[in-house]
């Protein structure tokens, strides 16, 4: 019987080998299964699925999952499609190292803004149209590569294609309308990890397409432009599939269901305030910039690195580069799994140590990657680095759901944007400069990762402690209720708006680790069962 220890939003539940591997289910009695609803999967009262059946395409839940992650995957493919072809493109467009670096920065910068806007778009039009609009309106930007004739055109087009990475938001938003919050962690983690794989798949796909088109008779400087049509078509195809096969909510599309207004909507200003004034948010924005951020950076530079440093053929460099991104299939979920595993024994302190260890290990291996001269060692260190960085991404989202209950959406969004910002920054500092080589850039980036990961030791939860400090011994300050309910004013508490936070607080007691004895209910808080 799968035991979910009541930690909503945790990355990887149920994967211990003792439970049925593919069906992540919610066993908690608090989630009432709606048995009157006719869906392929068991659902709760909102008709959100409570079980995650990975290899099913049943409408609407699992179909949505697959449409969603594949759309996200497609945008990763097109955003990083230029990277493995840079050795050809740089000759065609007469690019300098600075041009290539700036294009890389541009490719990840656009989505910092588009991701922030996408949340609002999903609220207005629904995630189905949000996703379809973005993916179909960015298809022309991908096709635009055929017009590019100089560095500025190249940078501009990569910037515009990069906007499409906001499908991350529509993907996660759509998942949260379809899946119960108790399994949303593993669902979103899997969708995000598999979407990120697109950055790896493209390193394999584009050189192969290029070779095929060249064999068919095109010259190299034309062949790469033709190759870009394939990601463009993928955008259009996925857009059409999302529009025809997808639906916003389990019961139908947004327009029809917008009449239901019983869920009181929270004020955006308040939610933003509690996100921005929580110092932990900013530490995680920084941290994610050095796990996800460096992953995106490597997606942009690694194929060219192997091509130049080790004199490999284009498609071979692409295969090696692909291995980096494809490791996401298992590495990101692995990070979430180790986070949950450490939490079982050591609680939140275990999660924080786990995150620090994984991300620092990634940094160390990145340093090594830049130092070695042999191909075998370079590949080995690259893979170890990929596991460290990607697992750190998964581990990050093992902690984020606990930073705030009220502002979880915005914090997740800000963290995601932080990832892109970190990527733009590292590319600008280390890889757009002609004054030091790519291998030096990798080593320095590794050192920066190690330094930027140190602030995780500053993340302190009064109720659970931090890496070096134990939890507060004060009965009120050291309670989960106090932490989560402090996000609501007295006025809001009178209206009962904090009820969900109270429930969450009780469920999060497992983050104390070890034997979770029933903690005394702090005085002054309304117990749940009343």
């Amino acid at each position, binding site marked *: 019987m799968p035991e979910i220890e009541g930690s909503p939003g945790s990355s990887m539940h149920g994967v211990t080998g003792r439970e049925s591997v593919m069906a992540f289910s919610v066993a908690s009695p608090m989630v009432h299964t709606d048995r009157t609803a006719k869906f392929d999967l068991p659902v709760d009262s909102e008709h959100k699925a409570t079980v995650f059946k990975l290899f099913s395409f049943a409408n609407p839940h699992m179909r949505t999952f697959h449409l969603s992650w594949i759309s996200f995957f497609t945008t990763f493919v097109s955003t990083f499609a230029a990277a493995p072809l840079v*050795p050809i493109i*740089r*000759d*065609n467009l*007469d690019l*300098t*190292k*600075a041009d290539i670096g700036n294009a890389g920065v541009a490719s990840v910068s656009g989505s910092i803004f588009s991701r922030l806007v996408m949340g609002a778009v999903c609220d207005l039009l629904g995630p189905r*149209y949000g996703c*379809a*609009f973005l993916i*179909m*309106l960015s*298809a*022309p930007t991908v*096709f*635009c590569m*055929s*017009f590019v*004739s100089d560095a500025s055109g190249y940078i501009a087009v990569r910037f515009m294609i990069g906007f499409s990475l906001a499908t991350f938001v529509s993907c996660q938003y759509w998942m949260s309308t379809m899946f119960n919050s108790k399994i949303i962690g593993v669902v979103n983690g899997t969708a995000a990890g598999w979407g990120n794989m697109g950055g790896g798949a493209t390193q394999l796909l584009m050189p192969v397409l290029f070779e095929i088109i060249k064999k068919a008779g095109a*010259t*190299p*400087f*034309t062949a*790469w*432009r*033709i190759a870009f*049509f394939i990601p*463009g*078509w993928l*955008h*259009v195809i996925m*857009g*059409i599939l999302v*529009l025809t096969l997808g639906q916003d909510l389990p019961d139908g*599309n947004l*327009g*029809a269901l917008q009449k239901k207004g019983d869920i009181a909507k929270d004020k955006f200003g308040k939610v933003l305030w509690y996100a921005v004034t929580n110092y932990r948010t900013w530490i995680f924005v920084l941290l994610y910039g050095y796990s996800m951020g460096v992953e995106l950076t490597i997606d942009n530079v690694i194929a*060219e690195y192997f091509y*130049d440093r080790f004199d490999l053929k284009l498609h071979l460099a692409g295969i090696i580069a692909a291995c980096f991104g494809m490791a996401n299939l298992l590495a990101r979920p692995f990070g979430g799994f180790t986070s949950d595993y450490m939490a079982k024994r050591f609680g939140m302190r275990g999660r924080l140590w786990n995150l620090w260890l994984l991300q620092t290990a990634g940094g160390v291996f990145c340093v090594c990657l830049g130092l*070695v*001269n*042999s191909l075998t*060692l370079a590949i080995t260190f690259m893979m170890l680095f990929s596991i460290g960085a990607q697992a750190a991404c998964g581990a990050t989202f093992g902690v984020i759901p606990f930073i705030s209950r009220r502002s979880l959406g915005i914090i997740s969004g800000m963290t995601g944007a932080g990832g892109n910002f970190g990527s733009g920054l590292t590319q600008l500092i280390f890889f757009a400069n*002609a004054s030091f*080589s*790519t291998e030096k850039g990798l080593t320095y980036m590794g050192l920066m990762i190690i330094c930027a990961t140190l602030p995780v030791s500053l993340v302190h939860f009064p109720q659970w402690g931090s890496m070096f400090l134990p939890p507060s011994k004060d009965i009120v300050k050291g309670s989960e209720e106090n932490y989560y309910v402090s996000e609501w004013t007295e006025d809001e508490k009178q209206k009962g708006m904090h009820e969900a936070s109270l429930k969450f607080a009780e469920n999060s007691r497992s983050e104390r680790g070890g034997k979770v004895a029933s903690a005394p209910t702090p005085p002054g808080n309304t117990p749940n069962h009343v």
Partner: protein
Amino acid sequence: MKIPAGFLVVCLMFSCFVATSYGVLFSSLKDTLIVTATHTQDQVLKAGEEQITVTWRFNQTYPAGTDSAYKTVKVKLCYAPISQKDRKWRKTVDLLKKDKTCPHKIVARPYTASNNSFTWTIERDIPSAVYFVRAFALNAQEEQVAYGQTTDAHKSSNLFTVQAITGRHVGLDVASICFSAFSVVSLAGFFYMEKRKGKVAQQK
């Protein structure tokens, strides 16, 4: 058990480092070939269309028998320093195995002391850059033993420019516009149709 494993790793890394520094150095080669080409100083040649004729012969001022080891000649198109600036992938390195100055092959011929010439149409995958021509003489083991080039030792005189093809095609541009239009129009179409369906359903 720990010490041998660590030692092995160090040995492995050391051997990798050592392996890379073995090979022929450019500075060890003698400039015994005289290479000339038909371009004029700073001429601009179009890739895929224009031609250049390269001639090479042994410099008779060197003692006879210097060229006894020469078996083949490889003539290459090389980047001038200005085209290597800010482009580390075209870097000049003394170790010829790692040198990226001359990536484009013009022709390879068996060695004869004189009467060598070759007319080459500049290929369509040659990028826009400033170039000179260099010929390497190789021995039976395919190692470089001598060279000659159309420019001076500082690679500053008698250079020429190649103007590459753009790689763009009208057909490609048209296809690009068509598919983009299809994407936008079909999205708008879907949106409009669903709005209309919604209105009709509401009216009912």
